[in-house]
């Protein structure tokens, strides 16, 4: 059976680095995470899915449609992208969010329709951006910019939301705020989400499907419980860790261990 998002034998990349046969599928309404060390091909895959990199091989299907064959405009109506680097531009927040309606505009349609305004207001309220809609994007903190970028992505009314490390550079308050929002969107709107995420604990806590990458290949995929185990993590990150469970949520938790403690623990049995 074909999934809602079906990526099969997909490859893209650069002359010196290519992805190798990426295959996984997501069901509608999943909140999926891509994890893996730096240089493992997460961002390359992300760029392949957004169309920034040309597909060299394989297919990407979204709800039965061939993504690489879509026109840019059609693609923007189906897939919304929140990139890693936030927007340091002099644009009022409300207009920035309104840019999410661009894929639906005609060439000489200069002004926002009433529906555009409804959608923008709805998602600004949902993301909490409404409180500072008249500020400039450049005046916002990193967390606020990320929320505005998500609001903009939502006004595209996408079927799939792609996020590139939505919590990087944020303090824990904002990390949790952004991820809570993404989880709420996923559950309340049924939005399918695929995001790159560095923090294994947050990945385990929030995602219900994980794809773990190493050297341009998928090393493991499945539920957080299946992926975030000691053997996989050590093989991929080449770092000793201790895995356990979050006492409240029961989700996998990963602890890093310092070199000194590792040495001591090795000596203990003697």
């Amino acid at each position: 059976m074909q999934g809602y998002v079906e990526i099969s034998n997909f490859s893209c990349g650069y002359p010196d680095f290519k992805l190798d046969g990426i295959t996984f599928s997501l069901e509608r309404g999943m909140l999926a995470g891509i994890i893996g060390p730096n240089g493992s091909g997460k961002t390359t895959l992300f760029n392949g899915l957004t169309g920034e990199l040309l597909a060299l091989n394989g297919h990407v299907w979204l709800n039965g449609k061939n993504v690489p064959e879509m026109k840019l405009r059609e693609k923007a109506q189906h897939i919304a992208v929140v990139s890693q680097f936030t927007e340091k531009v002099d644009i009022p927040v409300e207009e920035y969010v309104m840019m999410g309606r661009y894929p639906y505009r005609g060439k000489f349609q200069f002004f926002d329709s009433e529906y555009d305004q409804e959608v923008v207001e709805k998602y600004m309220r949902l993301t909490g951006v409404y409180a500072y809609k008249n500020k400039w994007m450049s005046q916002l903190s990193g967390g606020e910019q990320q929320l505005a970028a998500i609001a903009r992505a939502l006004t595209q009314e996408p079927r799939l939301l792609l996020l590139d490390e939505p919590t990087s550079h944020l303090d824990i308050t904002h990390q949790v705020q952004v991820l809570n929002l993404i989880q709420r969107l996923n559950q309340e709107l049924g939005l399918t989400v695929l995001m790159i995420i560095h923090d294994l604990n947050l990945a385990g806590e929030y995602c219900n499907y994980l794809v773990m990458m190493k050297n341009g290949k998928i090393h493991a995929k499945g539920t957080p419980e299946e992926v975030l185990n000691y053997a996989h993590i050590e093989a991929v990150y080449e770092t000793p860790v201790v895995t356990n469970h979050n006492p409240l949520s029961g989700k996998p938790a990963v602890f890093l261990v310092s070199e000194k403690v590792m040495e001591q623990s090795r000596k203990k049995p003697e």
Partner: protein
Amino acid sequence: MAQSTFKKYHLNWLGFAGLLGALVVVAALFSLSYGELQLKLKDMPGYLRMGEGLEYMVITKIRLPRVLLAVSVGGALSLTGTLLQGIYRNPLVEPYTLGISGGAALGVALAIVLEITAVLGEFILPVAGFIGSFVSIFLVYSLSMRKGTVNINRMLLIGVMISFISSSGMMFLMSITNVENMHSIVFWIMGSLDEPSTVLVQVMLYASLIVLIISLAFTRSLNALRLGEAKARHLGINTAFVIRILFILASLLTGLSVAVAGIIGFVGLVIPHLVRLVVGNDYRILLIGSFLSGSFFLLVCDLLARTIIAPNELPIGVITGMVGGVIFIVMLNRNKSRY
């Protein structure tokens, strides 16, 4: 709530465009009536109804073409400056940084030095200028092409280099030719709105209006490009197409302006910045605002050029450079936080 704030924006824009339009009309009327032969504004319709006589000839044959040229060249340079700043996402780009004017100047210098004008007439100078600018546009564009895509930073650097090469070439021509030809070249470079051919004036006017209308279809793309090329693509904008089309349109229009009126500096750099400071960076108002402001600025500069040492005339490039430069510095100092 949202509705009302947006309406307020649009009203402000409408007011701004209306004000600029009115300023252009006032400056144009003033230019038509002012000069060696002083005419009263209220008598103008009378002179025009006569359809003959000295006043009629001065208005329609001498001043009107000049006014139309100031409106279209000023508008064109300012518009292309705005467009190029938009696609390069670089506030210092102007029509002349890309080697377009250099190519045009070299073409004209070559035509003067080779004395083609003696064979084909004065009309060949703008044609040579246009060919020169076209060659440099072609060079800049094809040299910055790599694997079918245009790298925007590469394009900018190549443009600047082409500009240097053509100005060196022009100086070479000036150094080997006679004094008379050298004088013609210098005079042409300094720019003038005194264009004897009414055909060229019409071509310039229509071309600038056509480019303005076409570029209005790209306001959304230009706004999205402010976020960066990749993000604009994520919003469904075909950035490669937009950049290519706008670059070619802007270059051709600049080439035409330079061919018709010579090198009139600073309009394409300063005016877009001033307009940005007043109405912000939304291209929906910026394009029209820049065009009208450029028209107004050049009309005023032309008036100054005609009056400061009347009955003689200063080269308009001198006026725009000085006025534009001073305004730019004042503006920079008032907005230290932005740049």
